[in-house]
């Protein structure tokens, strides 16, 4: 398909980008890696009059060590995340989830910030960002603000970003020494998640000292599996603990129904995959 006509601007600083967005009013769209936006434009599901490309702003790219947190620029590509040792060391869960996205071509273009801003409930990075307690830095005409992941995701394809705002970077508290696993369930290698589970644990002396578990595609937004976390923490890192904890995976979720799965099957998958994710993360 062919998109409607639009103007294209490629500012070189964040301030210029914020200004360009403000000038364009409601009718502008930001493009990051374009992996989700391009199909939207081509199918004419959206016809902005201006497309603002963040690709020329170096400050939005890369991962920085900021003491007790990593700061990941919104325009950092999936590929760069996968090849950044800092991420493996301090936020392994994000690396594990990123590795399951699509294929190398798409990972070379798609960005961390773009994925979060797009907020597809089947997107693989949302649950990890939520599990690790990430915080979004957002720039707008009135300056910057911080939003926790738990407040950032509001609904299907909807975040707390306002039309005149730009996601600048994502602050991920360090989880050094944690182990992690992202268990993705899909039908072909390059398909989106039907359900997936992001699990990170800190095992200390054979017991689970801390646990973070979040679910992909079990609601219109990523969901923390708090019941599972509760049932894990302070218990022996063994199969029985994990099996019992995983039983609580679907609590508080509201899974969608589509051709791949109804709500029953999704809830069932959430339990099975949680068990597998935590088992792999804890190395049991």
């Amino acid at each position, binding site marked *: *398909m062919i998109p409607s006509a639009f103007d294209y601007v490629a500012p070189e600083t964040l301030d210029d980008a914020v200004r360009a967005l403000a000038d364009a009013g409601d009718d502008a769209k930001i493009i990051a890696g374009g992996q989700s936006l391009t199909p939207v434009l081509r199918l004419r599901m959206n016809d902005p009059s201006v497309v603002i490309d963040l690709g020329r702003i170096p400050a939005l790219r890369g991962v920085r060590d900021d003491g007790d947190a990593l700061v990941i620029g919104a325009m950092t590509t999936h590929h760069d995340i996968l090849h950044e040792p800092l991420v493996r060391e301090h936020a392994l869960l994000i690396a594990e989830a990123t590795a399951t996205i699509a294929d190398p071509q798409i990972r070379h273009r798609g960005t961390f910030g773009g994925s979060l801003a797009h907020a597809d409930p089947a997107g693989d990075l949302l649950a990890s960002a939520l599990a690790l307690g990430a915080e979004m830095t957002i720039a707008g005409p009135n300056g910057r603000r911080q939003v926790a992941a738990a407040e950032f995701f509001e609904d299907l394809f909807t975040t707390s970003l306002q039309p005149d705002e730009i996601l600048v970077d994502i602050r991920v508290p360090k989880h050094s020494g944690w182990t992690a696993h992202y268990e993705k*369930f899909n*039908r072909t*290698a390059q*398909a989106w998640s*039907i359900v997936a589970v992001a699990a990170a644990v800190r095992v200390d002396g054979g017991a689970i000292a801390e646990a973070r578990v979040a679910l992909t595609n079990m609601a219109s937004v990523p969901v923390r599996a708090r019941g599972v976390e509760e049932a894990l923490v302070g218990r022996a890192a063994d199969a029985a603990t994990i099996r019992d904890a995983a039983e609580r995976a679907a609590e508080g979720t509201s899974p969608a129904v589509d*051709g791949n799965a109804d709500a029953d099957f999704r809830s*069932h998958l959430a339990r*099975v995959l949680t068990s597998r994710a935590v088992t792999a993360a804890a190395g049991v």
Partner: protein
Amino acid sequence: MTAVAEPASSPAGEFGRSRARKEDAHLITGRSRWTGNLTLPGMLHMAVLRSPLAHARITGIDVSEAKSMPGVVAVYTGADLAEEQGDLPSAWPITPDMKKPPAPALAVDTVNFAGDAVAVVLARSDYEAHDALEGIDVDYEDLPVVLDLESAAAEGSELVHPDLGTNVSATWKLDSGEAGSGGDVEQAIAEAESSPDGIVVRRTLRQQRLVPAFMEPRAVVVDPNAQQATMWSSTQIPHILKLMLAMTLGIPEHKLRVIAPDVGGGFGGKLQVTPEEVLTLLTARRLGKPVKYAESRSESMQAAHHGRAQLQKLTLAAKRDGTVTGMKVELLADMGAYMRLLSPGIPVLGAFMFNGIYKIPAYHFSCSPVFTSKVPTDAYRGAGRPEATFGIERMMSELAAELGIDPLEIREKNWITHEEFPFNTVSGLTYDTGNYEAATARARELFGYDALRREQAERRERKDPVQLGIGVSTFTEMCGLAPSRVLGSLDYGAGGWEHAQVRMLPTGKVEVVTGISPHGQGHVTGFSQVVADRLGVPFDDVEIIHGDTQSAPKGLDTYGSRSLTVGGVAVAHAVATVIAKARPIAAHMMECAEDDLEFTEGRFQVRGTEKAVGITDVALAVFAAHDMPEGVEPSLDSDVTYDPENFSFPHGTHLCAVEVDTETGRVELRSYVAVDDVGRVVNPMLVEGQVHGGLAQGIAQALFEEAVYDESGTLLSGSFAEYLIPTAADLPSFTTDRTETPATSNTLGVKGVGEAGTIASTPAVVNAVLDAVRQFGVRDIDMPCTPMRVWKAIQEGAR
């Protein structure tokens, strides 16, 4: 057939040689000519407005805004073209009373599926054409939507075409008792049911709708201004297309030229005369300017024909020792909203294949094409034969399971043994050759059948969450479509011959013209090898000319695994004719008797001497024509039209092992062995490529692909995000091998391979899945066997 039979010579050893494809260099370096890349001076672009509704009356169309938009040259609706657009051709009236609705290229009063063309915009650029679609206002009045095949066929259903008075178009029957090719199936079933050592197995199997999903979406360009109106189209069938356009639009046939340039796949999906081709031609002629139409992927999914879509009610009667005594097949075939070129004939082709490789004493087949509010169905890789093979191979495995007999054993008990060929089947075909024993023995060995059975038992024993399943498919198919008299007896509108010319050029190079129309298979390479082999000239000295009705004027194109088995055989006969023409000239040149000459390795040699002339020397002498023998014309060209006497019958044994994760329902292919017998092999690498691609497509039907409509008739699987085609990452490394039982029905001994993998693999995989979960009480799972379906089947079965 006019060819003179010359003894086969294989001096250059071309048969069985894996040559790299002549086609590859230009394709992989991007020097290809796709229709979508063509640009002609002054060319306009056509965009199609499609119905968002599955069934509605058009109560008004306002195109005034669109007409005034930038770059727009014209906008046409169905009303504008009603007079000249005629009816899209449907060449296969399977019964004299078959009901068929009008099929206009642009809908006139009603739209009948979501995607039906409603209006076209012609503009100076593709962008402007698409922008202007938004300036067209259509008022629709909803009509009832008919989606489910079984309810569509039922009495009292809402109607897709009320004027026809029914959704059931026809009923086509084949009964071995009536035809005299076998016994009475009702009697066989009654006997099996009443006898203590009889068994009757009944299943209703579903063949889901599939999207052919060729790599290059359809595109067409028409230049109305040349001496002949010229159409470039991404089609499999330039010759049939030309004829059909001439016949349906009333354009004199000699004023039309159709070119199929590089074509990126078809799988039957481009064996069609499409509304878009008709509209491009009509608008170009009206406006006197070249017009291009190039569809998007989403348009292709929505509006290009789909395949399969059947409901199969199957009854197998047998003795408890596993001997099959009868097979009854009752089919409903989903036509979608219209009949396209071959739509109703596709399921009918299956009539001859439901008996598979078996000696079935009594057989009954009936098939009813049924209209629904969906995109029309038509040929898709295998066309009727995969559906039938699925039916029989699933049923043989079901029978084996019901009787507790090994599925390979039950097949062996019933198959035609190699001594029994030629064999007249219960459906009326004559299988020329085959050796099912040899292919099965080889497959069994490569697969490690017994070891896998042991592992399967162990996993069952220890209640492993991952269960192993082993699936069998021993298939055959009819290839080389087709003997014209057979097509005639089936009321098909054309024949099945093929045409070839061989032209020896003065310098010894060879031009070969064929009526087949390659679209990715590698025919240029394979045919060059056939010519090099037979004529004894270098492979690189052969040029294959095809896909243009001006330079390759006669032919019936490529589908039904016919290119080598019919087209290649025609070429071989044309080569033989050239050699026969050269013989008296060579004798004259060497002043000897014709009978003293032996033709080997491209040379005529006087028997028992060193004296010889090459065919290339003869070619030059013929060009000069200074000294021809009395009454011999100075030409080394030949022109052959070959009509096959019989189909060819490739066969094979495919074995598949799957691991089923019983906790998630996920099916993982663990190993796949395909032993195919495609007769003599010209180029093993091309055969291998066809088998691998075919397997991927057949496995895709078993596990991944399905065109799904929602309850309003909107296609949900409208892109590759929902319509899942597998990639290499989803498939195991295939183990392939061959046995070679040459066909006796053609001079090359070849059988055809284009569809084999697709036909064989679907039942192999589904049988494997069922073999893994039958222990939980599961007897069938609809395709594709998605994790949810498999998991639910286990839950329900275990209940």
